[in-house]
């Protein structure tokens, strides 16, 4: 139980988010452009992290589907910043050795002639350490 609590505290510290401010209006998930592609939605990240139920989020595909578009942050009436929480969960995964989601040797086959450098550096920042 204590390691679960430590992980919760670590994620709150990294993100700077206070999930207890959430009033469960669901606006973050309602406005999320990746909603259909996520098995856990922004409002669930807030409530599950708050309860210390973090492992399912770490195992989810949702952490890779967040677009970092900041719609949930902008439109939250309580300034909870769900995007920061999703980023913190993603970081707890990729900061572990061998847990990179994108490896450099897999990049060449993803390239097409028009793909901008910006896409590659952004993906590395999001998916790898």
């Amino acid at each position, binding site marked *: 139980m204590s390691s679960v609590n430590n992980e919760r505290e670590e994620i709150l510290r990294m993100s700077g988010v206070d999930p207890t401010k959430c009033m469960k209006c669901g606006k973050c998930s309602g406005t999320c452009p990746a909603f259909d592609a996520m098995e856990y939605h922004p409002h669930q990240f807030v409530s599950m992290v708050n309860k210390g139920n973090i492992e399912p989020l770490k195992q989810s595909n949702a952490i*890779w589907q967040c677009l970092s578009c900041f719609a949930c942050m902008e439109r939250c009436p309580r300034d909870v910043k769900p995007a920061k929480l999703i980023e913190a969960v993603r970081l707890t995964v990729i900061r572990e050795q061998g847990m990179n989601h994108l490896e450099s040797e897999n990049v060449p086959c993803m390239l097409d002639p028009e793909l*901008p450098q910006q*896409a590659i550096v952004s993906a590395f920042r999001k*998916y790898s350490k």
Partner: protein
Amino acid sequence: MVYSYYPGCTLKTKAKDLDMYARKSAEALGITLEEIPEWQCCGGVYPQAQDEIATKLSSVRTLNSAKEAGNDLVTVCSACHHVLKRVNDDMANNEYIRTRANNYMELEEPYAGETKVLHYLELLRDVVGFDELKKKVVNPLKGKKIAAYYGCLLLRPSGVMGLDDPEDPSIMEDFIKALGATPVVYPFRNECCGGYVTLQDQSLAQKKSNKVLGSAEAQGAEMVITACPLCMYNLKNNGTEHDLPVVYFTEILAEALGVK
């Protein structure tokens, strides 16, 4: 008017047009853009975690270079502008990040967010002025129906970016009007194109980009303008159901100013 200029990695490679037309237009408007010496890539996305310090340093170096040159800092790419403005906000207002970043940097004088960061569009609106810009147009884009695509990074989070109203922006529409064209307002102009997720799940980027283009097309747009190379890529390559032309805003600026 002299400004420090940060082009960013993509403007030197896949988005040369965005850079070239920005420089030509600035010259025509009497603005000198001095490229920051030995600048480094901003990383493309803002590292959101409090304890991400090293990943913010390339931005701090850029911001400090502008400070040492005594200039405001101008960027054109939406992503670079986003990262630089948010890191600058951290350096000004977040003591935890400011202290640690300065510990790495070992500058003679610590950096504390002194540099003013401007997007090129802000330069046009707030320094040149759209009325003045209109007077300098030699080739008005009359009759062209142009949809401005803001995407995410220019506007959000509005508290830090401060560029415009995040839900009902007007800076790009006013820009289009100044060039003599007709702006097309459409619901998805500030929704996401899919961004970097095209590398992880291309079908998601296709859905998002098609929604944006479909929304612009439904409102009668003949062309879409953007400030972001990744939006450009997604709209062009992942907006598979539409073939609306997408161009950089600096290209139509250069065209209207007669320097294309």
